[in-house]
């Protein structure tokens, strides 16, 4: 899951980035409304965390402009304002959730996952395909009940693919989901992770649609031996 953080306070911004990254999320951090509008042109974000007190524009104005600009991922407002009228104004203007500072970090992570799940066809806490199960919050993946030993990037890759099984994801889309701004990415990094994931899952799970991208699909049933 990739998060766009819009927060002008350095201490909070850096803390949220460090904490979400440690929780396995990919985070891009911007400090102004203008930067946020530019970043939202990228459709890779699963959730937006939005502070209201931005230096160049009101966070709620940003929300309205982003909604008019096009499809907007779920938005969680992170604000020091805790009065009901502020929450109501934020939710009425299109935010999906509202969290008051100071907040519990685990609650923030849980709410982000919940917002992300809400947009997906499967809205359970876990994603499943056949006997493959992925729990993004616990960061656990099992195949036929056996835990898979995945690196953080491999886990994120699997989570990105299993969110909507059968949907083909391009390499740039996967790269956007896996990496934040400023991370050094080798040209074939995603393919390396895909290769490792295929090896750990076994044949038939990750399919390459030539020239388009990759998708996760139920492996074909093994052919019964002829008697």
């Amino acid at each position, binding site marked *: 899951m990739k998060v766009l953080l819009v927060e002008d306070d350095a201490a909070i911004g*850096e*803390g949220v980035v460090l904490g979400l990254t*440690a929780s396995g999320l990919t985070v891009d951090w911007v400090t102004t409304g203008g930067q946020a509008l530019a970043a939202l042109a990228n459709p890779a974000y699963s959730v937006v965390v939005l502070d209201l007190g931005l230096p160049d524009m*009101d*966070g709620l*104005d940003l929300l309205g402009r982003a909604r008019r600009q096009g499809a907007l991922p779920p938005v969680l407002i992170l604000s*020091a304002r805790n009065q009901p009228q502020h929450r109501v*104004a934020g939710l009425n203007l299109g935010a999906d959730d509202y969290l008051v*500072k*100071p907040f519990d970090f685990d609650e923030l992570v849980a709410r982000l996952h919940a917002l992300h799940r809400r947009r997906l066809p499967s809205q359970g806490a876990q994603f499943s395909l056949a006997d493959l199960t992925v729990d993004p919050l616990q960061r656990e993946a099992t195949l036929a009940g056996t835990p898979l030993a995945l690196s953080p990037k491999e886990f994120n890759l699997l989570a990105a693919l299993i969110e909507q099984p059968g949907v083909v994801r391009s390499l740039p889309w996967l790269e956007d989901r896996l990496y934040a701004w400023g991370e050094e990415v080798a040209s074939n990094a995603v393919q390396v992770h895909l290769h490792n994931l295929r090896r750990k899952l076994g044949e038939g799970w990750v399919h390459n649609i030539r020239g388009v991208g990759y998708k996760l699909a139920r492996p074909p049933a093994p052919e019964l031996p002829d008697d």
Partner: protein
Amino acid sequence: MMGRLLRFQAVSVLVTGGLVAVVTFWLTWQSLNASRNHTLEQVAYSVVRHGLEAEDPNATDPPDAGQFVSQIWTGDGRLHFSSTDDDGPPRQSPGWHRLTWDGTDWQVFTLVEDGLTIQVSQADDTRTQAFLRTVPWVVGLLAMVTLLLYALLSAAARRSLQPLAQLQATLGNPQHPAQLPQLDTQPWPRELAPLVDTLNNVFAQLTHSRAAHAHLVARAAHEFRTPLAALKIHTQLLARQPDATQQARHQAHLLQAVERLTRLVNQLLKLAELEEPDHAEPTDTFDTTAWLDAALALWQPLAQAHGVQIVTTLEPGTRLSGKPQTLHAALDNLVHNAIRHSPPGSTLTIRAQDDAGHHRLMVEDHGCGMAPSQRLNGGVPDSTAPNHAAHSERSGLGLAIVRRVMWLHGGTLSLAETAGGGLTATLQWPRATAQPDAPAPAPPPPPAPT
């Protein structure tokens, strides 16, 4: 109040009644004496008119027998007639006399006519008894009048004070316990209208003051939440972070958050100090260059940390007058705000001017500026707007301190857009009246991080 008024009325009525009684008795006594004296004269002249022949020793006594003593002396001094069994009071010279005879005081009128001396006398006891017979009537009447007057005055007082009782009931039972009433001016008597107007003005000022106080508390709470959030995030992450380098980053943020909270607490304390009614730092005229240089030394570390350069522009020989430490508190908040909102590499300019009897201190930055509506409102965001949370980072305790300092100096804070973008805050206050020059005072020491 009602009891005191009634007691005052009762005492007034009693004193008035007493005075009226005394005057009445005195006038009655005077009238009685005049009447009796006139009677004495009439009796004497009657004897003269009717002559001695008219005196009939066998005649029955008139109704007033015993009240007067009539005596007649012939020309040779022989007592010809006396209405008493004895000789009666001694003969007097013509005219009025007071004398004591037979142990009693007498009023005597003596007339000499045609060789005869006619003398008519009356004992004071007789007069006093006649007078005392009127006393119960006069006292009774006065008592009745007094009681009637007291009852009427009490009723009038109760009726007149009824609006005050209504006013008290209205003030004592507001529609909402936390709400100050606004009284209608119509139902009150004309005499109470100024009081009601004054009360309404006081309530309006109190309401405004309470709203400002509530707004300030809300702003303070809002400003505390941001460093508290940073404190909470980094404390939680620090406990989970095994890497020493990452731990050091969290610790650095924790320290920064604590310093921000300390500054906020110091701002609150400064504001409370400025709000005290007996806040009285003496007014000085001081060398602005030395004053600003000392303050610059305090601001430079923060400016360098943000990559902001501070430039001062002073007219030569500028000397400011006012409360130097209080003014420093105002400028310190403006400069801190400007540094925090200036982009790295930008310049922050402080100008000091002194002309036309006014001082001006200006802080110009090239940061993100402030929303026009908030700028025109002296930095106070429009609380009626649903999104007024934005653009309010500069509207907290710092600007509240600045506004208070300017209020103490009889000056103003104005905010404008800097040419090319940013915010220019201008402090303007009138030059203080002539005071002996003082050396440049040192600004207060920076708050010690705890």
